[in-house]
């Protein structure tokens, strides 16, 4: 830095428009545009008093100008710049830079800029550093990835990368990292790893290259080839320059998440690096010590990297445990500084340590220590620490080792729920209570959540309602408690009780005899309230319609009183609720013959029979007619009590997950919770109520009839309540027996019958070309009865979804007896894959619910294109693929008779070309082909050597990708 450098002069110097030598038409020269900016002169760090100068007072004084004035001023300036760019006179570099910089400034003020890109690109090839720098800045901020200028930009970047000038290289790398487009990845993803691992690259360039590569990998992982460089990158963890280690650790962490095998060696290096940092004195690391904490950023990153892997081998593990213990011990030492930066940095490392301990979930001692540490933070005066402690404890609660330790803090957490002033902290407390809940404390936690609900912020009410509903169901020992809890929920926060919640309570009441009388009594009492929530009317109407008879003996709740009570709410309710109540009335006609005439009078009234709403009118007409013409026996059959619902996973859980967003972490947490729930005594045993075959008319009560029932005589088909529940991802049936065998049969052929039982036949026809395919699935109903709510679903794991894209349309939900429906699946292979999608089919046949799962035979070899080649070519390529990872070999016993012709047919059916006269031994088979995926093409060579005496085969696969060799070998080995 030049001596005597002063910030204020520099400010002018770098802002050409303000006082540049050719400042004519300057945007800021007259102070007007500055007034647009506002802004204050208060020092950000030492904010004691505002640093007011004459100048700033002038600037701020003008701040009241209108928005129109700002726009006018800016449009004028834009017009000026545009004319300069379009003018006959070629602009010199300096002016170009000035105007590009102005454009950027205007853009950053929030205005759209639609020109100047070309001028900015021109600046890139300037030899002047500042011009180049502004050019790059403009590109980084303003160029989006699909710009047609990208080729020109890439060219300039290429030149700078090749310049060997570290400053220019740095600028170019920063630009790639900032834009990070696919085109840039295509152009540079191969080049940057070389720069990164080259021996003569400067440290600062290495750092930029590492993070640049990281950005490209995030946007286009397929374009960053793994290779020899990876092992050298891992060794950057040993680099002397801590800045290089920091950048490299970020890169390795990201790469290791997708390619754990490739970066396995980083574990021990990271542990020893961490160990050196943890044990160093605070002065050892010089400028990398931050407020007396040695290299906090690097420590956090190393701990994060270790979370990509399971606990390491015993030797390394001992060392790591030592590190973690040291960090936990240090947390107990008195702080070395009172500054919040010191405690933040120290605790950042501590929290990351705890995350790692939770991730490993294997050292009870460490887990309990972590829990105690967090317990201390729960009462810390820093809000930030309380927040994080609550958050982190949530994950600890799911570990079997620390669940009990977490539970000891229940009072503190409940207290936090009541006293925290910040809603986001209270939200964390709710989450933690939910996570620590088990049968021992469920009543207390649910009660606390209910009482919090009365005053809770509107933004989090719905989530609390869902959580209470789930906990109440999951840990109910006594179902009367459950019914009370849900009714309380509706009373306190009726608006936030979603349909799933009240459907669920009805489902449970119907399935459990022991609670029905209590439920009827309770809803009857709750309905006495002068103003009750419509959701309560719905639950009350449904339950009294089914079980009103159980309390009718009491003169205080005689049939007539029940009816009048419900009917008093009728006129205040919405159409769907009224429709439900009408169904309740007709059920009453069956339950209580004595109120029949009263109800018929109601149904006959003009407000019902001539109701403007079609659904209500239809119900009134039909129910009235039914009550008049049907004999008691028929009424009793038609209006029989609802049969038990088939047991399903609560759809509330699905709703909660959906509310939390498509967040895999939450799903994981949920899965962990389930596991821990098993530890704490297991979920409530499912009520024994297999779906017995109900009478066909049981579905008469069309509930929640939002869509009008099809015109025609009752009963309207399809139990709507059931439909609603089947929307939730209900448990998928385990694979049908024989599914694996059938699956294997389809590896070498495309058409045939995939599955068959007494009810259903599934046939397949498929065709594949390059990386695309189309599969026709035929579902045949073998019975003479309709299948209802027929829903086939394709299920792919997350992994598979990324590599294989399947598109299909839903099929008609009814399949007539003897009919066949067809479903088309469009298939695209994005990258190579191992698993197969599952086809799950759910439908109702008669009264029973059917659930079938089969593996859908979409296998990697379907994207095979045969390649013919001569013997010489074959062996040359064979030799090229000689890395040990590229070859996979399998020796196995023949499962079928060893027939040459069949074998040949299978190899051709597998998709590869069968190469004759290539192998010197004519008994052997060799094949070649290319696997087409959207991202790459993978050449594959195979060789099958039969040994007739031993009835064995040896199969060797060589491809350029390890996973591909592996998968193809597995698939083909099953065929012989």
């Amino acid at each position, binding site marked *: 830095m030049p001596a005597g450098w002063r910030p204020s002069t520099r400010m002018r110097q770098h802002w050409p428009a303000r006082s540049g030598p050719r400042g004519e038409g300057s945007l800021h020269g007259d102070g007007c545009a500055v007034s647009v900016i506002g802004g*204050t002169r208060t020092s950000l760090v030492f904010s004691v008093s505002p640093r007011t100068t004459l100048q700033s007072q002038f600037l701020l004084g003008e701040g009241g100008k209108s928005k129109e004035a700002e726009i006018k001023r800016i449009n004028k300036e834009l017009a000026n710049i545009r004319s300069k760019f379009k003018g006959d006179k070629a602009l010199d570099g300096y002016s170009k830079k000035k105007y590009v910089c102005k454009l950027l400034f205007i853009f950053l003020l929030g205005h759209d800029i639609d020109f100047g890109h070309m001028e900015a690109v021109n600046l890139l090839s300037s030899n002047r550093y500042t011009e180049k*720098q502004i050019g790059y800045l403009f590109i980084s901020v303003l160029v989006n990835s699909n710009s047609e200028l990208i080729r020109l930009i890439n060219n300039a970047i290429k030149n700078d990368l090749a310049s060997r000038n570290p*400053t220019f290289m740095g600028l170019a790398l920063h630009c790639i990292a900032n834009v990070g487009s696919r085109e840039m990845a295509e152009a540079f993803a191969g080049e940057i790893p070389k720069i990164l691992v080259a021996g003569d690259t400067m440290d600062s360039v290495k750092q930029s290259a590492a993070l640049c590569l990281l950005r490209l990998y995030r946007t286009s992982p397929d374009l960053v080839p793994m290779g020899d460089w990876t092992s050298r990158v891992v060794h950057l963890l040993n680099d002397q320059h801590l800045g290089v280690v920091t950048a490299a650790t970020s890169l390795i962490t990201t790469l290791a998440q997708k390619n754990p095998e490739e970066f396995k060696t980083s574990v021990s290096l990271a542990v020893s690096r961490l160990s050196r940092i943890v044990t160093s004195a605070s002065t050892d690391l010089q400028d990398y010590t931050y407020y007396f904490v040695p290299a906090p950023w690097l420590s956090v990153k190393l701990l994060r990297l270790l979370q990509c892997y399971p606990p390491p081998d015993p030797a390394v593990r001992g060392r790591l445990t030592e590190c973690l213990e040291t960090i936990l011990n240090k947390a107990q030492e008195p702080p070395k500084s009172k500054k919040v930066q010191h405690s933040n940095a120290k605790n950042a490392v501590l929290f*990351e340590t705890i995350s790692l301990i939770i991730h490993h979930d294997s050292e009870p001692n460490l887990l309990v220590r972590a829990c105690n540490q967090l317990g201390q933070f729960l009462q810390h005066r820093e809000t930030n620490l309380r*927040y994080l402690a609550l958050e982190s404890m949530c994950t600890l609660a799911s570990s079997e080792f620390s669940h009990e330790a977490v539970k000891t803090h229940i009072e503190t957490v409940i207290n936090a729920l009541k006293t925290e002033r*910040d809603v986001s902290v209270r939200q964390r407390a709710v989450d933690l209570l939910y996570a620590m809940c088990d049968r021992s404390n469920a009543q207390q936690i649910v009660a606390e959540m209910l009482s919090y609900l009365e005053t809770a912020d509107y933004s989090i009410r719905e989530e609390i309602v869902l959580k209470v509903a789930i906990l109440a169901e999951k840990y109910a020992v006594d179902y009367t408690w459950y019914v009370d809890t849900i009714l309380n929920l509706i009373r306190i926060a009726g608006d936030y009780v979603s349909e799933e919640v009240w459907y669920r309570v009805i489902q449970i009441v119907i399935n459990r005899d022991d609670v029905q009388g209590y439920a009827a009594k309770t809803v009857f009492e709750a309905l006495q309230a002068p103003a009750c929530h419509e959701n309560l009317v719905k639950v009350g109407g449904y339950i009294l319609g089914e079980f009103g008879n159980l309390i009718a003996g009491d003169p205080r709740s005689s049939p007539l009183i029940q009816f009048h009570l419900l009917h008093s709410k009728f006129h205040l309710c919405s159409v769907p609720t009224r429709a439900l109540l009408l169904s309740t009335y007709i059920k009453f006609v069956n339950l209580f013959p004595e109120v029949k005439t009263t109800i018929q009078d109601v149904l006959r009234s003009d407000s019902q029979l001539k109701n403007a709403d079609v659904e209500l009118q239809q119900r009134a007409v039909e129910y009235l007619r039914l009550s008049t013409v049907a004999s008691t026996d028929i009424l009793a059959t038609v209006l029989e009590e609802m049969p038990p619902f088939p047991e399903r996973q609560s759809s509330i859980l699905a709703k909660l997950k959906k509310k939390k967003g498509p967040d895999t972490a939450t799903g994981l947490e949920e899965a962990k919770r389930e596991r821990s729930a098993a530890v704490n005594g297991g979920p409530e045993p499912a009520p024994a109520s297999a779906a017995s075959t109900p009478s066909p008319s049981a579905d008469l009560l069309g509930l929640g009839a939002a869509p009008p029932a099809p015109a025609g005589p009752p009963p309207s088909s399809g139990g709507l309540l059931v439909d609603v529940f089947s929307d939730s991802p209900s448990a998928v049936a385990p694979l049908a027996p024989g599914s694996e065998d059938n699956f294997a049969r389809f590896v070498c052929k495309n058409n045939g019958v995939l599955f068959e039982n007494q009810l259903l036949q599934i046939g397949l026809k498929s065709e594949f070309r390059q990386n695309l395919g189309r599969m026709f699935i035929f579902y045949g109903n073998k019975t003479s009865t309709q299948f209802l709510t027929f829903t086939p679903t394709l299920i792919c794991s997350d992994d598979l979804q990324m590599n294989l894209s399947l598109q299909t349309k839903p099929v008609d939900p009814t399949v007539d007896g003897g009919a066949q429906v067809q479903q088309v699946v469009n298939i695209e292979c994005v990258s190579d894959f191992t698993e197969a999608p599952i086809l799950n089919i759910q439908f109702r046949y008669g009264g029973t619910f059917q659930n079938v799962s089969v593996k859908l035979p979409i296998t990697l070899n379907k994207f095979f294109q045969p390649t013919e080649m001569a013997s010489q070519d074959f062996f040359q390529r064979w030799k090229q693929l000689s890395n040990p990872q590229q070859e996979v070999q399998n020796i196995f016993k023949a499962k079928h008779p060893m027939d040459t012709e069949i074998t040949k047919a299978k190899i051709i059916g597998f998709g590869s070309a069968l190469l004759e006269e290539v192998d010197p031994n004519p008994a052997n088979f060799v094949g070649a082909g290319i696997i087409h995926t959207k991202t790459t093409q993978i050449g594959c060579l195979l060789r099958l050597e039969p040994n007739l005496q031993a009835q064995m085969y040896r199969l060797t696969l060589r491809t350029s990708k390890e996973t591909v060799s592996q998968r193809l070998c597995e698939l083909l080995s099953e065929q012989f």
Partner: protein
Amino acid sequence: MQFMLLFSRQGKLRLQKWYVPLSDKEKKKITRELVQTVLARKPKMCSFLEWRDLKIVYKRYASLYFCCAIEDQDNELITLEIIHRYVELLDKYFGSVCELDIIFNFEKAYFILDEFLLGGEVQETSKKNVLKAIEQADLLQEVFFLCCLTKAIGCLGEVWEGS
């Protein structure tokens, strides 16, 4: 880190850095929403909040809010210190930095940020090293200026000699 925003108490955006590809429309929407949310929070509240599926970490320095969006598994406290280190860097470079420095020298603010954070990850945590890089760049500028000057003087000299 997915993005970093600097905005004033009046809600004016002073600096924006995006580490994920988003359309301009989306960026504007996010900015509007976040500025509103953060400005509505009271001083004693905690510096973290959940927003969509991200975590927001923010801190106020005098009239400016520094606001980072990080992913679920990222560390909130260390992000808070990323913000602080950035402020320290600005402060050291400008000498008691204030909002106007960032407005008028926005390009410097960006260059310093690029040296410190790249692709949303910390590149160099040493204050010395970051500032050294920026100063070298400044020096480069001076050198070019001097070169031009000497060239100009050289020309003049020729003119003198020629006459």
